[in-house]
């Protein structure tokens, strides 16, 4: 069946090419999803639909494994060898735009008016990238756990306060039923740390860099709020609520096998949890004083600066912005569709669907990571600081040196144009 449809698709491609071989211009495209068959099928479907829908452009895709994708783009840019269309992780986009790999999109703004804010990649007042989906994080637990521990169910309107959250962890630990109260996912090194944990810092009132100027981290990453956050973060490990080093296997199925009472995890892992238990709850982030926050922005599409046919590349991206494709990505690989109308077409995110809560979380709590070219370096510094604090390093000293390193990087880059 699959090979039949593939054959049909390639026939369509072939006939489209032969009928208009002279007028058509080839657009190249790079994508990060190699190795994921469902994802590849959907993106290939969009491309063949686009190629068949008009006679000016033909898009050709080349897929990379996600782990090697960013390096490939950087290497491609150094060699002056980028494709017309590329996809980019939301927080990395400003770096690529500033470095001159990408150019602003030429798409109709009204088409994306109702898109989730996290899906729009805006840098310097211009739209550089747009995502067909977003991702969100929630505090995963079970109704039966909350009942047993005597805890109220937090809601979007009334999330847990910091004290309520710590009380929940203390009760979960005291119950003796779990290996650890909280599964933070410390096994996932890399971008997970700033994506998942910097919202806690922001809820305390700190941030990775000062978003007012984007030229320093002084005072926001080592101020009183940040130190308070650091002490709280260290406490999670010294109190024995969470593990500073975690077995990757425990991250993958620890919660589903009853080792943890709570899990801080993304929508992409939610389907597995729903299979494991029938009373799963996806709770909003706790509020540590400055509102509950979760991260936003996932992979998005953009046009490379070296593209000779930006209008064609933008036409393809605009073509992909259809609710049916948003819904297909969501159904295929569990992502949060970028519009409410697409969400209504999906199995999981439609009203009353098992994951609909993630769409609401994204709408209500999402905050993009700092929009600056320096984010790429700041994120690594932040990750190391959190790992060190979790392992017992002095909070103030660690945050001070993180600030110094981020500030030194910003200075070395002439303030990244700010």
């Amino acid at each position, binding site marked *: 069946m699959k090979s039949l449809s593939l054959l049909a698709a390639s026939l369509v491609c072939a006939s489209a090419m032969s009928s208009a071989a002279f007028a058509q211009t080839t657009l190249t495209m790079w994508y990060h999803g190699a190795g994921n068959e469902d994802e590849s099928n959907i993106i290939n479907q969009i491309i063949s639909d686009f190629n068949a829908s008009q006679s000016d452009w033909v898009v050709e895709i080349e897929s990379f494994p996600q782990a090697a994708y960013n390096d490939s783009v950087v290497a491609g840019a150094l060699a002056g060898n980028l494709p017309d269309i590329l996809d980019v992780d939301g927080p990395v986009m400003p770096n690529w735009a500033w470095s001159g790999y990408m150019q602003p999109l030429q798409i109709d703004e009204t088409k994306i008016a109702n898109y989730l804010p996290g899906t729009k990649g805006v840098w310097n007042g211009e739209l550089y990238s747009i995502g067909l989906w977003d991702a969100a994080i929630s505090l995963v637990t079970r109704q039966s756990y909350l009942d047993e521990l005597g805890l109220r169910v937090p809601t979007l309107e009334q999330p847990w306060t910091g004290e309520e959250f710590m009380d929940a962890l203390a009760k979960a630990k005291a119950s003796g039923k779990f290996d650890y109260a909280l599964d933070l996912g410390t096994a996932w090194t890399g971008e997970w740390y700033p994506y998942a944990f910097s919202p806690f810092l922001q809820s305390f009132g700190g941030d990775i860099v000062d978003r007012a100027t984007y030229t320093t981290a002084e005072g926001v990453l080592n101020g009183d709020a940040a130190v308070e956050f650091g002490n709280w973060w260290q406490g999670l490990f010294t109190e024995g609520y969470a593990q500073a*080093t975690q*077995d990757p296997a425990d991250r993958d199925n620890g919660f589903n096998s009853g080792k943890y009472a709570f899990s801080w995890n993304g929508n992409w892992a939610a389907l597995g949890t729903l299979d494991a238990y029938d009373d799963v709850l996806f709770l909003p982030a706790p509020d540590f004083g400055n509102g509950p926050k979760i991260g936003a922005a996932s992979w998005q599409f953009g046009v490379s600066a070296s593209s000779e046919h930006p209008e064609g590349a933008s036409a393809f991206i605009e073509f992909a912005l259809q609710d049916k494709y948003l819904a297909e990505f969501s159904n295929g690989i569990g992502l949060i569709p970028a519009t409410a109308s697409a969400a209504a077409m999906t199995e999981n995110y439609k009203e009353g669907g098992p994951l609909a809560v993630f769409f609401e979380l994204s709408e209500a709590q999402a905050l993009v990571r700092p929009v600056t070219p320096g984010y790429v370096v700041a994120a690594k510094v932040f990750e*190391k600081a959190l790992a060190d604090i979790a392992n017992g390093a002095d909070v103030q000293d660690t945050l001070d040196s993180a600030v110094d390193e981020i500030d030194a990087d910003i200075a*070395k880059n002439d303030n990244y144009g700010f």
Partner: protein
Amino acid sequence: MASKFTRSNSTGWMMAGPAAALMALFIVLPFLFAIGFSFTNQRLISPNPTQFVGLSNYSQLLGMSLLTLEPEKDDAGNVVREADGSATYPALRGYTRNNADYPHLDGMREWFSVTLGDSRTYVLARDVVFMKAVVNTIIFVLIVAPVQGGLALVLALLINQRLRGINFFRAIYFMPVVVSIVVVSLLWRFIYDGQSGLLNNLLGALTFGTFPRIDWLGNPSTALGAIIAMSIWQAVGFHMVIWLSGLQTISPSLYEAAAIEGASKWQTFRYVTWPGLRNTAVLVLIVITMQAFALFSQIDVMTSGGPLDSTQTIVFQAVERGYGKQDISGGSTISVILFVFVLAVSLLQRWLTREKK
């Protein structure tokens, strides 16, 4: 002065040419670039023009300073003490951050401190992570070079016998060398796992469960040791083969003579085998030292320099900065420092192991 290089050896140059050209292109040229970049603020990718910054990359990496602090005193002039009797000191932060009286300390951090009497001397470094990386690398070299070399010699002596099935053992010992270091590192990460790792299970079974479970790679006091042990195991087979080739060049007639003279096993080793292995020993020592200084893959796969910088190494820092943090000038500077370091150590080793006339 017509040297051997210029006299009628065009055939020789043609044969060496391709390799020499490739080495110049991929080793010598990048290294010259690295030296050049280390005096600039070159970024991996940036629209800003590259600027010459002199020695600031070096002073940023190697800058050190001392600060002696007197303990805090109360109004009566008595030293304020903690409950356990130790004196308290003013926070370093007050001196190293935005203090106009100590501009030379701005941005420095405590590397370590020494307490003499009641005053405490802090050794401050501008880049504590790099200092820790240097110390870790030196510890790694100082342990791995003798232990790996010695163990390889023991293995070589063991398999240098005419026994049935000896090739089987040779293959076993050599096997880890053939497997990619990345794969070996991944496997050892499972072995060292804090909860269900093979090592913990083994130790638990041997001691009937009394041995506490240790998170070998997650504990700052065991992480470097764990990586040292695994690295020694991984490459010992390679050096065993070099020793073995050295052993087989020793003429059997020497051993026969020793046997006729009635030499004991130890005397045979001390006066026949060891002198015969002289050149091999120099080679093994220098090769292990240079490989050990280049420690990178194990760190990258197993710990990423953590926990608490206990496994940072020089090369890992060079890659982390140059590529991870897009700071090519910083990474280049580390590479140049490492080059000078390794060159000095190799020259010292050459001098120490020279033929005494």
